[in-house]
């Protein structure tokens, strides 16, 4: 049996196809026939459905004005044009990037071929081919312990100029006035346009350059000129000032002598 409350909850779904199962519908119809109040409720719900159906029918021919379609078509065309120009710009960018890469690769290959042919023709020893840099740029080692070997070019400024004026002139090291090739430098590779960079490094940082360092390496700094090949590898060193350990000097001289003996 169905009560009035349950009927009330279902009254708007009675005529809606597929909403209520057959068994429930039978109960609903049975209750509507036996309860005059719910029968009137059902009649009102049906009347509302009819009225809403009439409203839907009255509106069924309504549609957006024609000018909306025209405006949208213009928008479609404008959008397509925008998308096309965006794609063209993107394509042009990629083509430019590809061309730039191709030029760079080509230049690199040409440079390599030229340097190989120059090397094959007999080049002077690396250190001898170094162009003289009248005023080598000042460089300092950023942190003596943590960043040993990392060279940072300092931008010349009035402050550094004043500081340079205040600091005493570096003590010249007469017996090491010429460049000594570094142990790990590859003499076979072309030097190209080398640069001489003046650096200040802690004595302990000499180890990074492949030189022997005593365990009691002090924190005193050493000023040196380093020859850096075009490939970015340091080739030779010349100590300018500072307490250079004697074993460093000895090893460099020994190695140079050995190199000369091996390649007369």
């Amino acid at each position, binding site marked *: 049996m169905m009560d009035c409350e349950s009927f009330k909850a279902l009254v708007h779904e009675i005529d809606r196809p597929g*909403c209520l199962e057959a068994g429930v519908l039978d109960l609903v119809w049975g209750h509507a026939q036996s309860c005059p109040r719910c029968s009137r409720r059902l009649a009102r719900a049906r009347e509302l459905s009819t009225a809403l159906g009439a409203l839907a029918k009255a509106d069924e021919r309504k549609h957006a004005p024609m000018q909306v379609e025209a405006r949208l078509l213009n928008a479609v065309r404008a959008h397509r044009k925008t998308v096309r120009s965006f794609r063209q710009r993107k394509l042009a960018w990629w083509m430019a990037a590809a061309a730039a890469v191709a030029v760079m690769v080509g230049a690199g290959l040409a440079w390599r071929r030229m340097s190989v042919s120059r090397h094959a023709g007999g080049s002077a020893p690396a250190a001898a081919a170094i162009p003289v840099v009248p005023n080598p740029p000042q460089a300092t080692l950023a942190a003596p312990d943590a960043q040993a070997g990392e060279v940072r070019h300092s931008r010349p400024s009035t402050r550094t100029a004043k500081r340079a004026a205040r600091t005493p002139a570096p003590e010249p090291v007469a017996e090491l006035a010429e460049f000594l090739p570094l142990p790990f430098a590859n003499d076979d590779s072309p030097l190209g346009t080398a640069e001489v960079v003046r650096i200040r490094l802690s004595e302990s940082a000499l180890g990074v350059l492949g030189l022997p360092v005593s365990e009691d390496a002090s924190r005193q700094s050493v000023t040196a000129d380093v020859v850096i090949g075009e490939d970015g590898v340091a080739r030779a060193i010349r100590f300018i000032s500072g307490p250079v350990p004697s074993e460093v000097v000895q090893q460099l001289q020994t190695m140079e002598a050995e190199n000369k003996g091996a390649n007369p």
Partner: protein
Amino acid sequence: MMGLEDQASDADLLRDMIAGDEQAFVAIYRRLQGPLYRFALQMTGRASLAEEIVQEAFMTLIRQAKSFDASRGTLQAYLYGICRNHTLRCVAQESPYVGMPDAGWEGGNGFLELLDPSDPSASFAAAEKIERVRRAVLTLPPSYREVVVLCDLHEMAYEQAAGVLGCPIGTVRSRLHRARDLLLAKLRHGASGGMSLTAAERAESSESPQ
């Protein structure tokens, strides 16, 4: 004779439209603009707003056609959803004025069209009744109005309506039941007093629909 556009599915047309086929867009528009326009019109009661809403919905489709995901529903449901969002925004902005249809209803595209010249008095009564129902629908809170429009005027199944509204089917059923009760009450109390929003309805209308 049916054209190719008439036979193609919405998804196929949309794919062609994305590929740059202007005629595919026209086919989609002509197929779907009617129900969307009627939805916006029945929700706002204003032809000018409905026109704007339909245009905005299709502009969104032009700009973001690729964001349509066929696995989440039909293109029609997707556009209904966009229309609904625009409509609710408009209704919220113009809520103090919603309730009376604009002059467009009374013109050549509205009330007078319902009159049958062969039986003017009967058709006038029927047309008047339809306009009363329309006004009653427009005075419903938006969250109730939209279920009546979708389920009763657009004859959508609960499942479809739930897809458009983004809410569970149970919510659609309960809202429709409540909306129809409200409509019956409004129509019983007449066109003048019963059509205005009661305090309780105003409170309900301020609820954000799911």
